[in-house]
């Protein structure tokens, strides 16, 4: 706690590799990645499917240990999952037998070691507050099956935020939504993770525009082996609106540059990966 709290970096990876045994031998999903995300910043990792970006997220979450290298959050080595690092899954992962309210309250009620509220009254107030922020105050007594996909994502976001995790790990949480809903979720995320409720976000996506819209830093990752090829510091103000940002010529330029670079990474177009194809099983 002491040494790390003083440094500005909230998430740090030093020379981190992760390989998985497969029938065709070891598959190197993450290869010697070093990166650092400062407190309160949003960083996005983009890359082709199967490039190991989800593995990278799982390493920070503590779901799986690195094969080599060190993963630190808040200056402390990651050993296992914990409530200081909230996780938003690809699907909303709401519990279908609980109402929206009870789903959002779930971590606070049943989790251990949270820095969020722990009395039932405190939990209630906090849950209602976050439901308000994500625009679900009126839906609190509904069950997940009564919600649209976008509302389910909002509920999952409220659950993620209410537990007061300092780090938010988001694994393509909006990928399954339609374009319009995805856009509103991106804006909502920017709006709720703000100066008054700062969180350090590590966001995974394969959508370049999404990356440029929500983050301060973009990391481009290659597949097999998963390496960080490029680090882009997003040169726009955090406070500008969606319209302001997307209409900048620089935004469009950067977007197409990154898309072109991603295109070239897709296996088959250019043999960047020097490992046999059958290695690309689970990602």
């Amino acid at each position, binding site marked *: 706690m002491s040494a790390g709290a003083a440094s500005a970096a909230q998430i740090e990876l030093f020379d981190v590799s992760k390989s998985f045994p497969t029938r065709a031998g070891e598959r190197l999903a993450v290869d010697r990645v070093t990166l650092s995300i400062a407190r309160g910043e949003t960083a996005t990792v983009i890359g082709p499917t199967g490039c190991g970006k989800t593995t990278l997220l799982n390493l920070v979450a503590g779901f799986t240990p690195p094969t080599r290298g060190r993963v630190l959050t808040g200056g402390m080595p990651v050993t296992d999952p*914990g*409530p200081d690092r*909230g996780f938003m*899954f690809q699907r909303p992962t709401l*519990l279908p*037998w609980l109402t929206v309210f009870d789903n959002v309250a779930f*971590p606070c009620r049943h989790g*251990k*070691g949270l820095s969020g509220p722990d009395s039932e009254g405190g939990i209630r107030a906090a849950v209602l507050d976050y439901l308000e922020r994500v625009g679900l105050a009126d839906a609190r007594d509904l069950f997940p*099956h009564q919600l649209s996909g976008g509302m389910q994502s909002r509920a999952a976001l409220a659950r993620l935020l209410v537990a007061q995790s300092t780090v938010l790990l988001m694994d393509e949480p909006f990928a399954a939504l339609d374009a319009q809903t995805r856009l509103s979720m991106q804006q909502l995320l920017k709006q709720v993770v703000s100066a008054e409720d700062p969180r350090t976000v590590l966001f995974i996506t394969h959508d370049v525009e999404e990356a440029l819209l929500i983050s301060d830093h973009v990391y481009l990752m290659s597949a097999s082996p998963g390496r960080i090829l490029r680090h882009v510091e997003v040169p726009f103000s955090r406070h500008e609106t969606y319209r302001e940002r997307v209409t900048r010529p620089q935004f469009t330029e950067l977007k197409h540059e990154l898309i072109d670079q991603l295109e070239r990474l897709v296996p088959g177009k250019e043999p960047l990966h020097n490992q046999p194809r059958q290695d690309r099983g689970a990602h």
Partner: protein
Amino acid sequence: MDVHGRGGTASAIRFFGNRVVPPLSVVVLMLLFWEFLIPLGIVPGVKAEYLGTPSGVWAAATELATDGYGGYSLLAHVGASLMRTAAGFAIAASIGVPLGIILGYNARAGAFLLPVFAFLRPIPALAFIPIVVIWFGIGEFAKVFVIFMTSFLYVLLGSVSGVRSVPHDFFRLGRTYRLSTGTTLRRLVLPSALPEIFVSLRTAMALSWAVVVASELIAAQSGLGYLIQSASQVYAIHKVYVGVALIGLVGVAIDIGFQVVERRLLHWVGR
């Protein structure tokens, strides 16, 4: 649902005309044929005295309802079968569900025990009856034990499979917020596996009800199985019919009861 939901008398009449009258008229025709034409001996090879008549069934039903059978009232026979089923089923469920959840959750424990249960399950419970009679005699315990065996394996393996179908991300959610094992099992695994557990309970109950009657055919002084067996030995065909029909009715009633509980308890399923 819709048919009643829209409410109008017209739709009620349509429902009655389309869904009730046609099958009912077939049944009525068959009953008339059975009552009046079979006794004339017009169907070769069918002996009317073995087949009985609908009016005979009605008479047997009223007699059984008022006088009972073999010294017990009809309700007592139904009750005896129900009690045996309930006892065997309740013991099986209260051991099978928790054990199944543990074996499904803990892969190592499952690896030890599940192959044994997988071997036992396809053996029909009736095959155990002779063994059970040798072990425990022909008392109540033997019958309850046969029902327990029938239900237990179904419920256990159903619970295991329910736990294994819990979405992987639920466990990751639990790990993120450091849920204890007990909380994980109670708050995540059990509710998530409950729909599948409930299907296995319902199947186990239906099987148990079938098996109780079978076990009573072999050795019992009460119960619907005993009634059927005993009546058939004196060619009281009408009473046998009544007994068989009662087995069906009670079976349907049990299943409807399960469905009602299921719909209230598992309100989110299938939505």
